[in-house]
Every structure is written in structure tokens, then in C-alpha cells.
């Protein structure tokens, strides 16, 4: 199979994010747009070992989404990768939909017990309230390590999320248990809902703080596929140390009027804005 053109895949992911959010009429745009490249790389560029026809395949690499408000980029990529029909993307945030506003994973013994909707294939964890996914990822990595399983556990968090104390509890526990199979990616886009992260609550020297916990830290450009490839090589070099990747991205990437504007953190495009955004994504910047 020829290697897919990842920039093109990422562009399609962005287009589908815009469409889904415009139809939904609510949701978070900036972070999802900013991380389309790593999602393209994960699901189409060999970043993750996964099987869309067998979402529970035991050998799969796990992707734990800790910043649940990035749901649109996860859903869009899963649909494009064949986990469920693309047409279902238009049900995002609608009643009865499997595409909940924030991802819900539920282990059901009986189908539909206690929930009004079914569970979306490919979603590994429930997230929304920030900070929780990091701990879940640590638990999954620990389970894998103790069983001698060889898959990676990836976790995607956001920079604003690092303000949650729980994340720091999780980092030091990952170091204590020498979880070399954990790769924790922080989407460093410097926005959160109220403004710029550096103004709302500065994170200090994040690299030094993470290193201070005992993690291996790498800084990359989240829009550079060569950088993403390097993460994998680098991760293999440190079998006993959990990895943190500070991934610098542009929030709202690909659409000029959204880029680097914190106001796009938690709102969707209107129909008109969506047309403009799609045009820019298709034809390039005006």
C-alpha cells in the first residue's frame, strides 16, 4: 500500500472537523484543528498500531485522550480510518448519538445498560474534566508492563490541563513505576478557554518541570511530520522512562481567522464561517 500523503489527510481531517462542528452548532474548534497533523500521523502514518475492524485488538497501541474537548479530531480521524461511517459525523453532539460532546467509553456487560446512546468504536476512555486521562493512561501502561505486553500507551493532553494538580500526581507515579511504554503528548498551543495560558496561569518552564519529575522530554513542532517520526525513534531509546512530548501547535491551524485566537477554544464556526474556512482549507490562504 502506498504511504498516504499525510498533509492531505490532515487537511481532510480539518475539513471534517469544520463541517461536524458547524452542523453540531457547539463544540471546541481550536485544539482539534491544531492536532489534526498528529492524528493523521497516528492513524494513517503508522504512528499507532491499530485495526479499525478490530477496535479491541489486544496488540493495539492505546491512545488515551485526556483533553476530552478535542473529541472532534478523534471522531473525525476514527471515521476516516474506517471505525464507523463518515456520515455519522453529522450526528456530533445530537441526542442519541454515539458522538458525545465529550468522549464516553463504557464497559458494558449488557448492551445499553444505563446509557441513552451506544459506545463509539475506537474510543479508549471517558474524558472531559481535565487531568483524568493522564492517570488512566498510567494505569493502562502499568497493566501492560506488568503483563509483559509490548504495545505503546499514548496520552494526549493539553497545556491548560497541566494546571490540574492530578496530572503531576500522575507524572511522578509513571516515573516511579518506570513506565517506558508511556508517551504523553502535551498539545502546547498556549490557549485555554479564558485566554492565553501564559496569562491565565503560566506553566513556568514546563520542560524543566517535567524533567524534574524524572520524565524524558522532547520538544517538537506538531505540524512537522518528520518531527513526529522522530518521537518514535526517540521513545525506543528510553525503555524505563516515561516520555513527555511538548508538542508546539498553532490553535485553529489551517484557517487564518481562527489561528492563535483563544476565542476559538470553545466555539464552533457558524455556517458562513465554515464556508470560508473550508474554502481556505481547499484553496489555501487568500
Amino acid at each position, binding site marked *: 500500500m502506498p504511504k498516504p500523503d499525510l498533509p492531505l489527510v490532515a487537511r481532510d481531517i480539518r475539513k471534517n472537523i469544520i463541517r461536524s462542528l458547524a452542523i453540531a452548532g457547539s463544540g471546541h474548534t481550536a485544539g482539534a484543528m491544531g492536532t489534526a497533523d498528529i492524528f493523521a500521523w497516528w492513524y494513517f502514518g503508522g504512528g499507532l498500531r491499530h485495526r479499525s475492524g478490530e477496535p479491541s485488538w489486544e496488540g493495539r497501541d492505546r491512545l488515551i485522550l485526556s483533553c476530552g474537548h478535542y473529541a472532534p479530531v478523534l471522531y473525525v480521524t476514527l471515521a476516516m480510518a474506517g471505525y464507523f461511517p463518515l456520515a455519522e459525523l453529522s450526528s456530533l453532539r445530537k441526542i442519541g448519538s454515539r458522538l458525545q460532546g465529550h468522549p464516553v467509553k463504557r464497559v458494558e456487560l449488557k448492551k445499553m445498560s444505563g446509557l441513552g446512546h451506544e459506545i463509539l468504536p475506537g474510543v479508549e476512555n471517558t474524558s472531559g474534566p481535565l487531568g483524568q486521562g493522564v492517570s488512566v493512561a498510567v494505569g493502562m501502561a502499568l*497493566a501492560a508492563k506488568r503483563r509483559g505486553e509490548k504495545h505503546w500507551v499514548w496520552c494526549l493532553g493539553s497545556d491548560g490541563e497541566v494546571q490540574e494538580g492530578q496530572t503531576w500526581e500522575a507524572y511522578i507515579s509513571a516515573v516511579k513505576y518506570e513506565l517506558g511504554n508511556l508517551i504523553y503528548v502535551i498539545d502546547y498551543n498556549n490557549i485555554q478557554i479564558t485566554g492565553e495560558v501564559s496569562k491565565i496561569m503560566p506553566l513556568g518552564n514546563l520542560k524543566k518541570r517535567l524533567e524534574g519529575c524524572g520524565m524524558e522530554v522532547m520538544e517538537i513542532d506538531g505540524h512537522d511530520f518528520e518531527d513526529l517520526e522522530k518521537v518514535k525513534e526517540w521513545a525506543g531509546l528510553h525503555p524505563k522512562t516515561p516520555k513527555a512530548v511538548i508538542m508546539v501547535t498553532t490553535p485553529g491551524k489551517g484557517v487564518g481567522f481562527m489561528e492563535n485566537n483563544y476565542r476559538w477554544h470553545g466555539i464552533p464556526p457558524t455556517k458562513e464561517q465554515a464556508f470560508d474556512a473550508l474554502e481556505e482549507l481547499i484553496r489555501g490562504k487568500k
Partner: protein
Amino acid sequence: MTEVQMKATRDGFGEALLSLGEKQNKVMVVCADLEESMRVEEFGKRFPERMVEVGVAEQNMVGLAAGLALEGNCVFAVSYAAFSPGRSWDQIRVSVALSNLNVKIVGGHTGLGVGPDGATHQALEDIAIMRVLPGMMVVVPADAYQARQATERLSELYGPAYLRLTRQKTGLFVDKALKFEIGKAQILRQGKDITVVGCGPILGEAMKVAEKLAGRVSVEVINMHTVKPIDAETLIRSAKKTGRVLCIEDHQVTGGLGGAVAEVLSEKMPVRLERMGVADKWGESGLPEDLYEKFGLSARWIEGRVEKLML
């Protein structure tokens, strides 16, 4: 009367875990720096590969437990109730309950019975905040032997659960021959004049009162060890028979077993109901027996409330 053997419910829990460890390799324990006190130290020594110590970090404890459960383990997440579910409730709600994972939250040192540590450590709200979560089982063993049974049964039942334990040694007063089943109340004593329903070791005091009053007042004593799902059927049947219900627990009367009982009876079988527990107050330091006396939960007070309801 024969001497009643004394033992803490946390000890029954610890013993059950050890035997579960031998039988099931999916049983894991995550603990937040309270291994000795919560009686999981021995489990950790015997099964180091199934023990995780996270330090003083209850939020991470619960999230990490959820991760282990997502990989197919049955995980007991263990701390004092004031800290978990106290501090970790959001993690329990989202990472465990909404996800319907096989994590058993074990909260120790509950109620006024904690004693000298005082109000900060006397969890009096834990039943309320756990029972409100959809799908969450809430189990309050009455004595150490029952704690052992509850731990074993919960490990066999898939799904999120809360197990409420206590620090102090209390009497083994529940007849071991009685069947123990999650969600099914035990009738510890048959009676026809008044129903006393309760949970936890404090119910032992109610049993003493029932014995003392026997011959004059016929007291039915129900052990509602599972607060959720509550055994409404047994409760309604008894209330219908006696027409008077007294509820007792070492917890705030608001939202706990008393709340659950009031919800059932007011809708299905309105009878005279009084609830004993901590009445919207904070605990304080002291010996458990002195605190029960001061807060109106000792046998003497229970007797008074029974007499009052019989008027």
C-alpha cells in the same frame, strides 16, 4: 450473654483480599499511603505484582485504578473515605462510574467511630455522595465477618462499587448462618411493633436495645448492608407490618441510608419514620463511645427513640 468477639471491619476486608489474591489473579489493589491502616499491607507483600502504591494522591489513585480496570482487572482502590471518595469524587464519577469500570472504591475510617482524629477524618458524607452516582453499588458491612463476605461478593460482581469500612473494633453480632447477598437486606431479628433499619457496626447497638426491650416491645431489626441498590421490598414489607420505622447510621442523616429509606417509604409506604445519625453537624475528637453518647447515637439514645415512636 456470651462475650461478643470484637474486630474491625477493615480487618475483615484485609483477610478477604488475601484469600481473593490466592484465587483470582485479576484482583489488584491500589493504595494511597495507607497500606497498614487499611489492612492491605499483607496483600502487597504476597502479591507485589498486583499492588500499586501511589502515595498521597487519591485522584491519581482512582484514575490509575480505572486504567488497570480498562485492561481487565478487578481493582480495589483503597484509602480513608474522607480522601476517597472525599477528594477523588470527580475521578470516581467520570473515570470509574460513567465508564462502568470494575473498580471498588474502599473508604476506611468512616463515621464518628474514627474517634480522636476528629472532624477532618470522620467521613460522614460518603454514602450520600456515592449513592447519587448511577450504577454505583454502596455496601456498608455491619461487622468484620460481613466485611469479608462483602469484599468477596463484590469481587465477583462486575461494576463500580463503594465499600464503607470502619477503624474501631466492633462486635461480631451478625449471625454467620444468615445468607449474605449484595442488594438483599438481612432481617437480624423478627418483630411486629417497630422496624429498626440500619447499616454498619452501629446497628449492633440497636440489637442490644431490641434484646433489652424484648417482651415489652417487639423490635424488628433490618441490616440494610447494601444502601444501593436498596432492598425496597424487604423494607416496605416490614414497614407495612410494624407501621413505625427508625433508621440508624453513623453518617449524616441527610443523603445517607436515612435519606434512601425516606425516599422509598415516602413514595411507597408512608409510615411514621425517624432518622438517627449525625444531624447536620461536624464531628469532633473523642472516644467513639463518648461521641456516640454526645451525638445521640448510643444504645441509650436508640432506646429513647424507640420508646418515643411507640407512644
